[in-house]
């Protein structure tokens, strides 16, 4: 296949950015979600409100932060609040429209593992753990999940359930005290999955340019259901690609720059 002129990771970021609307309140994680949210802010959603769990609200960073608490986030924020307030007064109180989540593993009901591969008491790989994810998953009005697909990440059975999606499906989530609506989209490297309205099982609903249903099925570790209509996600526009690449270039330069050591 000829070089399409953009990478799948860029497509994921751009597709996620397109799901965000102007003015929406977004709880942002580091990595792809941070890139997607800032791309949206720099293109079609200038008044998006970005909340990072470090306590920065309404932040407008010029470069992407390496950590969730870079000084850039505080300097460009509307306000900086103590972390317990972000989780209690904002997230738990239902003031977040969209929460972004990543993970090492996802299952067919959008439940996520970011804790361990292998048994908890004797893990093969110890992952960083929950962080803010369980409560973002519970209380954001909706969540978008971003992770690359392999049969080892899209699994039949999670090694550990860190964050609840639709649990066992068929309305199980609605019977809990979670206030948010759960995962509305999973953005991965072949396209997008979304829950079936009845069973709540994730189905293939959209494909990136160059991706196929066969590729999607091959990368997912459970028998992937396909929606009646599978949309073709439009190729990136020149503005989207240029804005994203410039953001990454500024970020890379900033993170490699030697800082003045304190005396």
């Amino acid at each position, binding site marked *: 296949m000829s070089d399409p002129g953009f990478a799948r990771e860029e497509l994921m970021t751009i597709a996620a950015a397109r799901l965000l609307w102007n003015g929406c309140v977004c709880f942002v994680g*580091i990595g792809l979600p941070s890139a997607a949210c800032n791309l949206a802010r720099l293109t079609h959603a200038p008044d998006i409100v970005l909340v990072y769990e*470090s306590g920065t609200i309404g932040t407008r960073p010029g470069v992407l*932060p*390496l950590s969730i608490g870079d000084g850039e986030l505080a300097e460009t924020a509307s306000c900086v609040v103590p972390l*317990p307030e972000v989780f209690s007064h904002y997230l738990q109180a239902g003031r977040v429209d969209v929460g972004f989540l990543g993970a090492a593993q996802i299952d067919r009901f959008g439940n996520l593992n970011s804790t361990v591969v292998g048994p*908890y008491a004797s893990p093969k790989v*110890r992952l960083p753990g929950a962080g803010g994810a369980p409560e973002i998953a*519970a209380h954001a009005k909706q969540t978008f999940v971003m992770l690359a697909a392999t049969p080892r990440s899209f699994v039949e059975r999670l090694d550990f359930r860190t964050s609840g999606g639709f649990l066992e499906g068929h309305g199980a989530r609605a019977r809990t005290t979670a*206030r948010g609506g759960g995962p509305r989209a999973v953005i991965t490297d072949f396209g997008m999955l979304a829950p079936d309205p009845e069973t709540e099982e994730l189905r293939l609903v959209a494909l990136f340019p160059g991706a196929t249903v066969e590729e999607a099925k091959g990368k997912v570790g459970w028998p992937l259901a396909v929606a009646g209509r599978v949309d073709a996600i439009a190729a990136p526009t020149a503005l989207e690609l240029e804005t994203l690449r410039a953001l990454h270039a500024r970020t890379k330069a900033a993170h490699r720059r030697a800082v003045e050591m304190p005396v």
Partner: protein
Amino acid sequence: MLLSLSDAIDRFVPDGASVALEGFTHLIPFAAGHEIIRQRRRDLHLIRMTPDLVYDQMIGMGCARRLTFSWGGNPGVGSLHRLRDAVEHGWPRPLELDEHSHAAMAAAFTAGAARLPFGVLRGYIGTDLPAHNPRIRSVDCPFTGETLAAVPALNPDVTIVHAQRADRAGNVAIHGILGAAREAALAATSLIVTVEEIVDALPPAMNGIVLPHFVVSAIAHVPGGAYPSYAHGCYARDNAFYLAWDVIARERAAFTAWMERHVLGTRDHGAFLAGLRAEAA
């Protein structure tokens, strides 16, 4: 009480203590962590939402027996290799985990600051964490009957935080990203604060974050005390160091050599910073 950092650690951080070095990415008290390593403390119960590089170093140097935490990675970079080695292989010693979510740690520090027995949140819904941590329980609301998550209050024997400045009376002013530093400070039995500078008088701080002198056990003047984390308005986070740490800490031998040279081999934080400056030049 103004003390040198080494005197403050000697006095308030005995072997076996529960210790919280807080500060969320910003204002992480690295100098204090290094001094604990220099004084070869053992069997500590380390408490921190995000263990970060400072606990990776303390765990790798054998200071800790237990870790209360909610996210253990190198932010934006990847794994904490020393934390992983301790959990996956018991090196240099096994590490007990008391693992939570951020929201629950925040609730536990807030309860601790208020001297309440537990923190409460609408949390841990649909997760396996409670099945592996007996300290995550539930409580029924006496008014509505709703079942809520409960976590025991965190009351560290000693909390250590870093701040931009204190005045001579011992009042401490913090600017910028706070994390749960204020709650962790007020939850502790003893509170050590390292500061960039000590001034005659702090500017008026209505609605500012101030730890008043009567909650502070000791202040130590440690310029650069948060490096390679940062102190807003004083110096920036050394993101390149966080990237470099991934290589330094990946293997036991390289990690140990680095710690012996830069931490055990230096008498204090000033010498630690001078050593890194010389190496960079």
